[in-house]
């Protein structure tokens, strides 16, 4: 049987508490929106499969599990991430300024070739805007990333953000495939949670199941 996708990308959402990371995630994965602010509980990751240039791409998008609240995101969160969306709130100057800190964090802990993108969320609340679009664009240029203003509530640019990032990862990946090399070999990686991991060994028919 064929795989149901061609690529699997692990993406992360990062940014200050309350900028709408979880809302962006839910808008993209479930096309739903909930206005009330609840610090993220019980959200691990969400999955949506998209199609780009005839390739099926499975996006596995991880939420911070609220660990950004005291800047205590585990370094393990960054492992294996291929793309990171940095989120700030256009009605919150502080969250915009903190993007720099988050980028420093990424440089410290994520793979050096991770694709990044900055989005200014809540762009539907124009009357409370504190960060102009130009400043957002400027910051993105400074760090050499793409930029979009989004609204999870009004469903503005959310799909575009994820599609753009996925496209960038895909083209980088296809280039790398030609060059090969880079990170340690993926061969031989074991996921202990998988169910079909029982390999036949010569011991298995003697099944020694004491413990």
């Amino acid at each position: 049987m064929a795989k149901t996708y061609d690529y699997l990308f692990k993406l992360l959402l990062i940014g200050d508490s309350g900028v709408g990371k979880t809302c962006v995630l839910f808008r993209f994965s479930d096309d739903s929106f909930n206005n009330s602010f609840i610090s993220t509980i019980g959200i691990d990751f969400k999955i949506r499969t998209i199609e780009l240039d005839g390739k099926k791409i499975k996006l596995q998008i991880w939420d911070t599990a609220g660990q950004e609240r005291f800047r205590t995101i585990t370094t393990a969160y960054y492992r294996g991430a291929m793309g990171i969306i940095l989120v700030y709130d256009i009605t919150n100057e502080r969250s915009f300024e903190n993007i720099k800190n988050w980028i420093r964090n990424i440089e410290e802990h994520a793979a050096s070739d991770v694709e990044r993108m900055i989005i200014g969320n809540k762009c539907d609340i124009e009357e409370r805007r504190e960060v102009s679009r130009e400043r957002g664009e400027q910051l993105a240029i400074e760090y050499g990333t793409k930029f979009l203003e989004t609204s999870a509530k009004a469903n503005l640019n959310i799909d575009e953000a994820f599609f753009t990032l996925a496209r960038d990862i895909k083209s980088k990946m296809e280039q790398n495939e030609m060059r090969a090399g880079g990170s340690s070999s993926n061969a031989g990686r074991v996921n202990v949670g998988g169910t079909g991991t029982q390999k036949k060994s010569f011991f298995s028919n003697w099944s020694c199941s004491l413990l």
Partner: protein
Amino acid sequence: MDEKLPENVDVVVLGTGLPEAILASACARAGLSVLHLDRNEYYGGDWSSFTMSMVHEVNENKITPLTTEQIAEISKIHVKENEKLIELGNREVVENIEMTWIPRDSDEKSMKEKLEEMGQMRRFSIDLVPKILVSKGNMVQTLCDSQVSHYAEFKLINRQLCPTETKDSKIQLNPVPCSKGEIFQSSVLSILEKRALMKFITFCTQWSTKPSEEGRQLLGEMADRPFSEFLAQMGVGETLQSFIINTIGILQPRPTAMSGMLASCEFMDSVGHFGPSPFLFPLYGCGELSQCFCRLAAVFGSLYCLGRPVQAMVKEDDRITAIIANNERINCRHVIMSPRFVPEDVEIQKNEKIERVVFATDKSIKVVEKEQLTLVNLASLRPEAAVSRLVEVGFEACTAPKGHFLVHATGSSCGGDEKSVESIAERIFEENEVVPYWKMSFTANSMKFDTKRLGANIVVAPPVDSNIHYSNVIEELEDVNLRDFSVDLQESDVDLRDSIVDLLDAGVDLRNRSVDLQDPGVNLRDLVVDLRDPGVDLRGSDLDLRDSDVDLRERDPGVDLRDPGVDLRNFCVDLREPGVDLRDPSVDLRNPGVDLRNAGVDLRDPSVDLRNPGVDLRNAGVDLRNCRQIFCSTWPDLDFLPRAMKSEEEEESEEKSEEKEENAEETAENQ
């Protein structure tokens, strides 16, 4: 970012080492509110993995005890009349740390500069406690049960080396064959030995499934004798004896006949589970595991705050009532702490000193074509010591830059310097032309305390230990009686968001919902007022309203539910009937028919705000005591996760198994 810490939680966890992280995640998953604190800026405490730049910074990080003025100040603000302030300790779990860059003649530029220039310092992951996972061991089981396995990846320890001293006193490193193929291809064993080995394996397998009378008797008699004696009895020659003992000795140093047999069986059972080797190593180092459990705890609502001073505890009678951290008071009902935090005046019951040395090299101790994850049992070279081993992990394990390795030496101390694991490692390096460019050495203290007098509601997590596996840690954690925690749940504000599973298990079946709690006809909020009255014991009464001759219809509007004779459990209100107003005397409360247990309210329905349910379950008679499923195989179901998420996970695992099948087919074809 200076958000305030919460004022009240169920559990405060001090230290983010692996055992504390597992306990925190268990508590969070059981629905308790958890605040997890660490004085360090990083996760993992004494179980951490560091990058090369971090490891040098951490060394300079010292915590000073509180001054008398500080204690007086804290006491004045935070401690009530009947309470006592107890300063938390800062035990030296890791001590005598020394780190050096070793200059080498062959380097034009120092390796430090070279690595810094290339930005490779952060590619190191230097474990304080390097361990391996046994494929069928309880750590792997815990990872699977808790689904923390989602967060981590592993690689097989694909090479075990067994050193022997040759006549010219050189150390020869022989690969230990694990699988059938490897045994037959091995050049270390003669054909006769191979046959004897296979015979022994067969015996083990039989013994563990249905032991023959003979085998049982033999082991019964010899259980506590050395394993080697037992092997000799089995007709295993000396070379093979030492070979077997060295191989399983990594799991069970100095085995007796019984412990040796158990270890042999565990070893063989794990072979082939994930691949030819029975052992796994976590990518990016063992420190990842504590972080992964912390993430699980966070996903279930645990709050994380690192890099803050954690100063003292507040005690009333024999219970800790609060923690003072960052000069804030956090009231709590339970405290879990790593050994590091145990107050200085508590006596150490037992302390095992573990000698640790880490080398950074740019050549493997035994070069082969493909990079390996290597385990070397040094027991044969240090027979007096209980623990002596090397673990070599590099780029393949994501713990070093490409072409580099970390060699971890671990040993219990014995005899003089020339017998230390460090000196043996250095001999191995020299003989194999490996020149380390960096070295760190320290002593780890595996401390146990008598904490009974410290407080009735304190759990001290297991310390770091010298075993190569995690079995003992998990076993000790399973012994931690978390059930004690949940007894108090009845008195606490139960957070319904996470305890739904437990309510289901309690016999209240809320799943088949037909009642809309928001239906204006049913006024649950008014019912609550009466239930909350502390004087009502709705559980203890044995009066059944149905059989009583009290006709509620003839009473005033506003039936007094506080009447101690009312047994609400058998109350049988038909909540499904629209427009019921419990205060309305016209309701026939005697009417049997509503069993709330079958009423099936779907608490997963997002329209019901469970965080503010209005219904106070504290005294409602739902006994949560017996439904806490906290550990290991009894992790609660993930039923209450959004359905979409679950199906995706399932879908994913299906896909994975499909891939596996595919791969299997491919290999079959290739053959």
